[in-house]
């Protein structure tokens, strides 16, 4: 630790502190084998999703693209993962599908975390009737059967990836609201919050300086754990036929594999790759999220 710095500006110190905090997170993540492999897998998928146009041309996804190809052909040099029931390259669909699945998973999570944090923060900080009402709404979303609600909303609101992400986000914030509220309740009883109030701080100061920095790590860790759920939900909706017909998500690939009878025809190259991709990404996000949770949550990290 550098103890004595000749002249320290407050801003320079804030940066030094952030850099140190980041370095600590990075170091602990490097030492966490499962969490770090999760991160590497995610980076791999992210890279593929970003470079999709370089790997396969988007025109390969069109129904017309498979006109001259064999239907349900097994893997070959030309089609590394074979073709689907109308002769389209499955690898191309898989690569482009990673874009849709990751986009919807992450965007839905952002929506869920934003709503959840806001509700949790208000319900935890403001006591009284407001909190009671918010908690009632939260309970409703916790217990209401999630899939039917998502299906109904998806049908009503339309099926573009953005609306799908909004629908998924809107139906999966309840858990994080609970989590954030609990943490806010605990934080606002801390001695340093009382000290800040005695110094003359208003709620704005208390929330911005003490409550939010205290819940932020929890929110980040929680977010990485919501993403896999959102990806699974998107796959489920697409598999059930409520997804966006025009974007090739992994769930839609599975839907196609199922309706074309690939399982009875033993065309494993059709249903296995998207299934494996979903499982791998979900697992990677979970490993990474659990690692972040361990690092950020003092109770788990044993600090």
């Amino acid at each position: 630790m550098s103890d004595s710095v000749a002249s320290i500006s407050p801003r320079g110190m804030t940066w030094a502190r952030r850099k140190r905090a980041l370095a600590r997170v990075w170091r602990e993540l490097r030492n966490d084998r499962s969490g770090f492999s999760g991160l590497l897998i995610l980076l791999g998928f992210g890279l593929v999703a970003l470079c999709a146009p370089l790997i396969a041309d988007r025109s390969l996804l069109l129904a017309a693209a498979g006109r001259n190809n064999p239907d349900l052909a097994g893997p070959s040099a030309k089609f590394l993962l074979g073709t689907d029931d109308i002769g389209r390259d499955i690898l191309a669909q898989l690569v482009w599908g990673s874009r849709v699945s990751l986009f919807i998973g992450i965007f839905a999570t952002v929506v869920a975390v934003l709503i959840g944090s806001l509700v949790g923060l208000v319900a935890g900080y403001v006591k009284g009737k407001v909190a009671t009402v918010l908690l009632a709404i939260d309970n409703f979303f916790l217990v209401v059967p999630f899939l039917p609600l998502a299906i109904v909303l998806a049908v009503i609101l339309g099926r573009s990836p953005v609306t799908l992400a909004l629908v998924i986000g809107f139906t999966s914030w309840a858990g994080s609201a609970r989590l954030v509220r609990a943490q806010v309740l605990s934080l606002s009883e801390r001695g340093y919050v009382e000290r800040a109030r005695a110094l003359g701080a208003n709620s704005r100061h208390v929330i911005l300086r003490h409550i939010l920095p205290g819940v932020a790590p929890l929110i980040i860790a929680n977010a990485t754990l919501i993403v896999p759920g959102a990806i699974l939900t998107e796959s489920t909706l697409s598999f059930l036929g409520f997804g966006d017909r025009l974007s090739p998500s992994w769930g839609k690939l599975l839907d196609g594999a199922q309706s074309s009878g690939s399982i009875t025809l033993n065309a494993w190259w059709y249903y296995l790759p998207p299934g494996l991709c979903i499982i791998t990404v979900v697992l990677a996000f979970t490993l990474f999220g659990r690692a972040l949770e361990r690092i950020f949550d003092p109770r788990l990290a044993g600090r």
Partner: protein
Amino acid sequence: MSSNKQYSGNALLELRDVHVAYPSRRRGGSVARAVDGVQLTLQPGEIVALVGESGCGKTTLARAILGLQQLSQGTIQFDGESIPTDAAGKKLFRRQVQIVFQDPTASLNPRQSVYEIVAEGLRIHGNSENEHKIVSAALERCGLHPADRYLLRYPHELSGGQRQRVVIAGAMVLEPRLLIADEPVSSLDASVRGEILKLLQDLARDKNMAVLVVTHDLGLPWNIADRIAVMYLGRIVEIGTTEDVLARPKHPYTRALLSVVHEHLQLEQQILKGDTPDPTSISRGCRFNPRCPMVQSGEAERLGILQKCLNDDPVLPNKQNNDHIAACHALNI
């Protein structure tokens, strides 16, 4: 000796008949009279120790002075004016009255560096000029020097005593005129207690800052306090200069407390018997009568005051500032 009026004219803090009652949670339950008629004045630069066992209302009283607790009756005047209730007035008031809590570890945000913690008060009050200089000076004044060595540290890298120094420095940057120290050393090692108390004493002297030390430990305050106030069940039952109270305790409760702490006084050890005090059912007559050794030993009856003890609530005599007074019927015979 100066008159009462003159004292109240330049008193920094004046509490008159302060009551704080907590309504019962259950319907039909009785009200808890946590603070039940407290009179107290503090002069600028004066250190007063408020002593009492847990549950006697001393922390509630401290919170009431800070304006964090609503009074159910009575007035608190700071610098001749009642504590403001509007936001701007409150903020200005908070600048002048600061508190140091019992547990320095809990009072410090573990995610903030010493610099940010000490500067917090300045930032809240929008005073950012010379921030670095003021923070360093406050830290060094509180015994952490050179300040640069501590600025970037985090609370968990400091010892308990150093943490409490940081808390005190954080209060001192606002240059308060009254510091309330709620059990400031009870969570610290015995070896650093004296140092922290000495620091409070020095700060009070240098900055002409009044300090109200709230403690349950009669063994501690006597080396720094100018006056001691003993609190029992929501009321001050004895008050006087430190020497008077410690050497010639008047109230049987104070005597009982001192008998177990100060062996040199050679008081017969008295362990109080009877129910522990309960602010929801303060007894009729003197609030101390269920536990009073004088009542239990029959001494009160011999003195002919037993009926008074059981029926009349003794009041503190009207006092001069440094008078040694106690609320006990045995003193008025």
